[in-house]
């Protein structure tokens, strides 16, 4: 059971009274509890328990809204499903809104009404954040980002060492001193960002992207302090912390006079910076914000890089990160890049805008207390992958890579998980003479 401070509870309820636009009040009033969203949710499909139906999650938030913010909820709460925000309700909200929703948005597309369910789940998370009820594991990830500049708390020295090491490897491989991984250089066209998992666990994906930049003759840089593309403040729904994280990156782009912010392969990081960042900071960005998928597509179209897809001969499939595809509009762009980089692509069923989440979204990977659920719902993705017969799964998101790697191990899929930059780097035709 949780404890709630009354003042904070009132502040949480006030979030439901927000009238900045008509979206919140619309969605709070639109669900008819038909329950038809159940079959679109991985949690329900994997566990078949009614509490996992998306509309149950919606109803938690909207029943509080009705109780405190509507005439009918105040005078006849029992009649209109209006409920108090008490300790029991808050505990259920933590369990279901943090622990049983990846905010993938699959249910939205299939909702008979069109209720933006993850939008309401996030609103519920905001309420919980206001009451200091964010799961500790997720909060510690956000704290690390706020306090150290990256969500894994990697010390700058360690990061710089990794980058220097990768740079030496790249220079050796290309046999060209111009093949570099620039750090903290000013006035470069591209300000590139990483998921901290890259320097920590997957440094080869950094050199893969560096190789692409080298092939494209790009002017780019990384920051040694604020290179983290992620923003778990989006998932813990503490707007103040999300704003700090987004602002750190924004200010760093300005400090180094970057002209384009290139969002590394991270679904939620791309979403948090491309779509939410300007709204956190309450200003339009005065530089372009582009995902790495779009940048590579641009290089291919303009002829800045040449790919030989025969160099990638395996059978490949794509896992579509929810934040880049359903919530980011990059379905076709991802396919354009992949089809230029590999010979044999087999799609999952369903894929694209209908694709299932990997199961690690919504901050789930950071919340170890829900590991069992995360792996259980991931079976849906594992089965999808197995059915394709593919040997390699491509996904432009390190968060998804992490979850898919665990699914690969748990469900013995025997596949390789790679990012888009890795597969593109493998197909590069480099003429450095």
């Amino acid at each position, binding site marked *: 059971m949780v404890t709630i401070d009354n003042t904070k509870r009132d502040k949480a309820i006030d979030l439901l009274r927000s009238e900045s636009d008509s979206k919140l009040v*619309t969605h709070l009033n639109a669900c008819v509890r038909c329950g038809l969203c159940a079959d*679109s949710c991985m949690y329900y499909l994997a566990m078949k328990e009614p509490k996992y139906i998306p509309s149950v999650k919606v109803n938690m938030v909207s029943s509080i809204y009705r109780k405190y913010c509507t005439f009918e909820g105040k005078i006849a709460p*029992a009649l209109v499903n209006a409920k108090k925000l008490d300790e029991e309700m808050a505990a259920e909200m933590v369990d279901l809104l943090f622990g049983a929703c990846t905010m993938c948005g699959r249910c939205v597309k*299939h909702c008979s009404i069109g209720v933006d369910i993850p939008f309401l789940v996030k609103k519920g998370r905001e309420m919980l954040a206001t009451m200091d009820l964010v799961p500790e594991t997720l909060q510690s990830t956000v704290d690390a980002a706020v306090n150290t500049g990256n969500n894994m708390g990697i010390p700058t020295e360690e990061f710089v060492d990794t980058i220097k090491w990768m740079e030496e490897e790249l220079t050796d491989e290309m046999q060209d001193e111009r093949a570099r991984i620039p750090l903290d250089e000013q006035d470069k066209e591209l300000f590139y960002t990483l998921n901290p998992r890259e320097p920590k666990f997957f440094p080869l994906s950094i050199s893969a992207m560096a190789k692409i930049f080298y092939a494209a003759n790009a002017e780019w840089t990384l920051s040694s302090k604020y290179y983290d593309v992620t923003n778990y403040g989006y998932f813990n729904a503490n707007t103040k912390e999300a704003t700090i994280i987004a602002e750190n990156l924004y200010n760093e782009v300005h400090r180094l006079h970057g002209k384009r912010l290139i969002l590394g392969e991270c679904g939620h990081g791309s979403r948090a910076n491309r779509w939410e960042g300007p709204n956190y900071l309450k*200003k339009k960005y005065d530089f372009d914000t582009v995902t790495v998928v779009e940048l590579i597509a641009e290089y291919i179209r303009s002829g800045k890089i040449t790919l030989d897809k025969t160099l990638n001969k395996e059978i490949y499939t794509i896992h579509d990160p929810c934040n880049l595809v*359903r919530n980011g509009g990059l379905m076709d762009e991802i396919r354009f890049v992949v089809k230029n980089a590999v010979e044999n692509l087999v799609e999952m069923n369903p894929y694209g805008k209908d694709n299932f989440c990997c199961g690690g979204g919504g901050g789930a990977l950071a919340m170890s207390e829900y590991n069992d659920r995360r792996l259980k719902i991931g079976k849906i993705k594992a089965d999808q992958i197995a059915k394709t017969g593919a040997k390699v799964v491509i996904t432009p998101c390190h968060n998804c890579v992490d979850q898919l790697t665990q699914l690969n191990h748990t469900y013995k899929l025997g596949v390789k998980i790679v990012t888009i930059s890795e597969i593109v780097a493998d197909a590069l035709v480099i003429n450095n003479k």
Partner: protein
Amino acid sequence: MDCSGCCALIASGICFLIFLARFIHLVRLGNPKDLSQKSGDTKKAVKYSFTEAMMPKNKESAYLHLPTYIAGILYHIGTFVTLISFVSFIVISFTKISIPYSVSLIVAIILAPAVISGISILIKRIFSKELSLLSGPDDYISNIVTTLAQLLTAIFLLLPEAGDIYFIVMTLFFLWLPFGKTRHLMYFFFARYHLGYFYGWRGTW
């Protein structure tokens, strides 16, 4: 028009005014003030949201649940017929026009499957483990009031002497409409709009 008819007329007026006030409020609040750089075409996506995205082939809630989906469609057709019929009865009550029996019969026939659908949806809600967990009094009241309104409309069309009970049910229906989940009568359209706007802004649709 007798007393029960006047009550229903007043209730419908109250209902209309509440919805009108909410409509104006929502329109005034307007679109999300998104400061990110737009990637797609919001107008096109809003249009898509109300058309193709609603097609059964594009929604699991439809193609995985065809009987429920069809029942839902029939039920909603019945609700709109009920509302149109009420307006017609009121207009006609101020004139000397009478509805031909053949027209009454056709409308009643249209309403019959709607009523059956409403009852079947109610039965499903009562007996389905998932739905009963989701449900509260609002869900049952909304269904019963709406189904009764459809049923009494059909009966009144064929048996004018059922006028009193018809208008009493319509009074309850109109008084419940803006407060129960039946208010999605209006919010549905705004939800579809926002859905299209969101996906359109980001270039998903």
